[in-house]
């Protein structure tokens, strides 16, 4: 079953790069959705089925940490894994993100392998689309 991924970043260039890496990753990706800030991301999440969110932290209107907090308040959204993709690399920020419920953290600048490795860990697939975990363990219902 294909995964739908939501990319959240106020930089259109960064969204384009992450999109390109994910497309070329070899994983079983369905739709690649985008949002320019946390508020827009919430709208997308309410309208579309999303299996994974990759989000920047520093964005206008609603930042990435606020986005996670909002998602965790919602019964439908709280189980969606969220990975931070950000320049903010302090231990404190990483800890803050994890305490809010982030599933992973990628620091910019990053290599394509950093994104792929995180996708593999979160989605439980290798690049050939083979699952290596029991679907009953949790995650999206598909």
């Amino acid at each position, binding site marked *: 079953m294909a995964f739908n991924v939501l990319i959240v970043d106020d*930089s259109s260039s*960064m969204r384009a790069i992450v999109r390109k890496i994910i497309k070329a990753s070899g994983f079983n990706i369905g739709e690649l959705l985008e949002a320019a800030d946390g508020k827009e991301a919430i709208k997308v999440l309410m309208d579309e089925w999303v299996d994974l969110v990759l989000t920047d932290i520093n964005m206008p209107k609603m930042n990435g940490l606020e986005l996670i907090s909002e998602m965790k308040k919602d019964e439908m959204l709280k189980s969606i894994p969220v990975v931070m993709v*950000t*320049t*903010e690399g*302090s*231990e404190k920020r990483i800890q*803050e993100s994890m305490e809010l419920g982030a599933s992973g953290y990628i620091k*910019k600048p990053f290599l394509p392998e950093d994104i792929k490795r995180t996708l593999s860990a979160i989605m439980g697939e290798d690049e050939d689309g083979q699952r290596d975990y029991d679907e009953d363990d949790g995650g999206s219902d598909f």
Partner: protein
Amino acid sequence: MDRETMMKTMGEATSNVLDTMFYQPVQIRDTNCSLQKWFSRKQLLVGATLSFHGPSAGSFYLLLPATMVTGITSNFLGIEEEEINEEQKKDTVKESLNMIGGHMLSLFDKEGAFKLDIPEFIEESDLTEDKLGDLKGDVIFIETEENRLAVGIQIETGNWKFDT
């Protein structure tokens, strides 16, 4: 942090970002020249500025030739130069500085005391030779194979002291 360490950290961050995301190996030049002397008079420059606040407040800035931007945008996005639009170029310049500033802070700010604002693009018209003199602070001078860039930091308030 002393000035020398700060400049070294800024150089390291700049080099990491340009090499990793833009495939631009760089050399940091040890020079005390002015921005006007560093860049050729005929070159049109563009740039970005990025404010930060925390124990100290100030801003980073990045300056580079307008002619360089298409090439680095092409490398960054992985698309042909003919496909690139103005918005993508501006966004690339802003995101470059966002990564340089963020990476630099992450190299020493383990506590996350500093916060970055949203980067802003600087137009050619604001970077004429006479206006370059308005940019203060400490600068690192960078060379790629074909171009020259500069990254600067201006501290406006706070207790981030360094020897001058």
